[in-house]
């Protein structure tokens, strides 16, 4: 097991390398000069002298290869450099904002699990019943509505009209309610349908028929046998989505003025704040890799038929 994790961790290096290379290339393909973008954002007219000075300051006058190697060297020391915009170390800026994003992502994940597991199971058990129709409705709504629009709708009803919850900001758990709902609805939609079909599939299996003939109660069959297997695709989905959630809070953070990492990143893109962009991509790449690894480990734990060598043994 440990050697498996070790091997997987080593595999992280080329993936991260690739991610930084792609980012680096994309930034430099872009027709916008970061020094110029900085000056434009600062409302300073980019005269040739100051452009030259800024390029030198940012190290943009160095050959591309030197720039890339320097970037890699810094990242390998977990030094993400200094933000062009604020002149502060990127990591310090990220550290302040990361907890807000993690908080939002985790609460959304928890809410989506709490809602979708019972809803998915009940929808499968009462197929075509009212609860199944309800879950279908929620899924349809959740999957098709754009997140920013849902955010506005929620603010409009719960904050402006009913005056129950704050419009924006962070501080109390009340501030967390609407952004969490916004983020988790799409996950609930996804997980509910996933679990429903997976439970339905399991219910066709012979072991369920056998258990029924043995007179085991339906609830026990469901909880002790079916769910344990049916939940596997859900775990894969969640693992993939945790990374997506952390990187996907951008729109929701913007709508709810949530002071997180996503908002910071958006601003960095507009200002071509390269060190911040690189830091973000690096963290996102690591996060996706770690989430994938976690999913595999959970599968390994839950289904002993899967070996750590990655093949299914009979």
């Amino acid at each position, binding site marked *: 097991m440990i050697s498996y994790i070790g091997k997987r961790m080593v595999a992280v290096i080329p993936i991260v390398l690739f991610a930084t290379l792609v980012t680096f290339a994309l930034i430099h393909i872009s027709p916008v000069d970061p020094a110029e973008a900085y000056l434009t954002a600062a409302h300073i007219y980019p*005269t040739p002298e100051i452009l030259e000075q800024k390029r030198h300051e940012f190290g943009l006058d160095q050959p591309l290869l030197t720039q890339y190697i320097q970037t890699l060297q810094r990242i390998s020391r977990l030094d993400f450099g200094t933000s062009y915009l604020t002149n502060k170390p990127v990591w310090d800026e990220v550290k302040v904002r990361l907890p807000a994003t993690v908080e939002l992502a985790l609460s959304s994940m928890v809410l989506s699990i709490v809602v979708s597991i019972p809803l998915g199971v009940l929808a499968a058990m009462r197929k075509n019943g009212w609860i199944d129709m309800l879950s279908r409705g929620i899924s349809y709504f959740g999957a098709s509505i754009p997140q920013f629009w849902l955010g506005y709708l929620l603010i409009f009803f719960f904050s402006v009209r009913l005056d129950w919850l*704050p419009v924006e900001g962070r501080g109390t758990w009340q501030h967390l309610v609407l952004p969490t709902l916004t983020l988790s609805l799409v996950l609930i939609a996804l997980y509910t349908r996933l679990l429903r079909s997976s439970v339905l599939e399991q219910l066709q299996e012979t072991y369920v028929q056998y258990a029924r003939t043995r007179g085991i109660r339906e609830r026990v069959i469901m909880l002790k046998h079916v769910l344990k297997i049916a939940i596997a695709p859900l775990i894969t989905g969640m693992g993939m989505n945790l990374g997506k959630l952390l990187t996907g809070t951008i729109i929701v953070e913007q709508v*709810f003025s949530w002071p997180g990492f996503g908002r910071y990143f958006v601003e960095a893109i507009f200002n071509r704040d390269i060190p911040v962009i690189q830091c973000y991509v690096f963290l996102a790449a690591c996060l996706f890799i770690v989430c994938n690894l976690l999913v595999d480990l959970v599968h390994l734990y839950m289904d002993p038929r899967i070996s750590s060598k990655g093949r299914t043994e009979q």
Partner: protein
Amino acid sequence: MSVRHRKTATIMLVAILLLSVILGCAKQENTPASTSTDGAANEKSITLSWPRDIGTMNPHVYNPSQLFAQSMIYEPLVSYKQGGKLEPALAEAWTISKDGKTYTFKLRKGVKFSDGTLFNAAIVKKNFDAIMKNEKTHSWLGIVSVLDKTEAVDDSTFRMTLKEPYYPVLQDLSVVRPFRFLGEAGFPDDGDTSKGIKKPVGTGPWMLDEYKQDEYATFKRNPNYWGTAPKVDKIIVKIIPDGETRVMAFEKGDLDLIYGEGVISLDAFKQLRDTNNYVTKLSEPVGTRSLLLNSSNPKLADLRVRLALQHGFNKQAMVEGVTSGLEEKADTVLSKNYPYTNVDLQPVDYDVEKSKALLDEAGWKLPAGGTVREKDGQQLDFELIFDKTDPIQKAMAETIQAEWGELGVKVNLTGLELTVQIKRLRSNQFDLYFWYNYGAPYDPHSFINVIAKKSFGISEVLSALPMKKDLDQQVHEALSSTDETKRQELYASILKTLQEQSAIVPISYIKKTAVYQKKITNFVFPANRDENPFEGIEIGK
């Protein structure tokens, strides 16, 4: 009731109780203290929103510090007021030597920084030195390139000497950054403020009280302020990046004021105005939306073509249609509320027939059965580039495309990211371009400066005008002239030439918007485009 039903009922009851507790609590927000005007201590505060964090509040650096907030804490020597009037601020009076090179400022006595330390010539000199240490960063501002030396003559006299005369010195000193003054306690040990300051200490009416990055900032009154103390005790700035959220927070009553340029959409502004529940205001023009017709393009080098294009679209209808009357049709490139710009100029009116006649005269004829005019086998077509994130530019570009299409002029539209658009302007790679002047206190002198000085993109646009050299000479003379009458004449001549040449086509005057709750009174837009509007603002019942 069966056991099972009793159980369900209990669960329901607990759920309802929980929900009511949640919702009960939800009404108490804990973001900045005392957001309401009838708070415990009867404190009068105003809450507004801003799209971005206020920044480090360093008076000598730019992004990410926000101009309006910097202007709350730091003050200039000279203040820019309505109509371009320059009034004493930290300098009580000033004299300018006959040759226009020496400026002597008598500093206001008894001025203290918010920490109680004295404001004097020594600290003025220290600030100037810190600013000039990073001369290149500030080279966009005219005064920086002509400033030769500064001296603290005595405690209340500060003198600066220029390398050559440059009349807009006082205007440049009135801008929000970099020439404003940080107290001694704010300076870093090495005196280099470009790398950061210890704390924001200024002489202005406000001081930073609480601050949470990306969330909010509160400003309270500076107890040592030399001028009339603000009427309200506190200004709370909530950072809300999204325009729609800002509007909803305002409707909920969380915000008292939404102020600025483009901070909410024109639709939202109209919607709030139409409810009649709030006060809405539009400022005087703060800048002009113009269309550049690049004369370095051989087709546009012909004055008849440029005039035909300006005659050829209904400016009034377009501005009203696209901005719902929130912008005003512009007949001249600079509005008349700047110094030297109140000049009688002949507007170029909407006249399709004249436009067609001019194009015919210039040799661009419609071929039989064709829709695009041609001359020597070439089509009369142009590329209009616009900022693709700006809905107004996009709608205007489409309108112009349609109207000129009727004349037989083909316009290809290219939506670009703003930074790419600016790059194209600076490298002179465009035919048609939306451009804005800088507004007060930068104009009119910054405007004429870019006409003559290369690398801003505007001088290049005008490069094929037959009188370009003469125009540049006039600009140079106007900027260095010490004679007020002569300067006025030069401005009149420059503006007249530009009006006749039709290479910079004025479209509309941009205005700032303000929406506020009815309890706010005495709201006045600042004359300086970048300053804050909190001076004199009051809260009624």
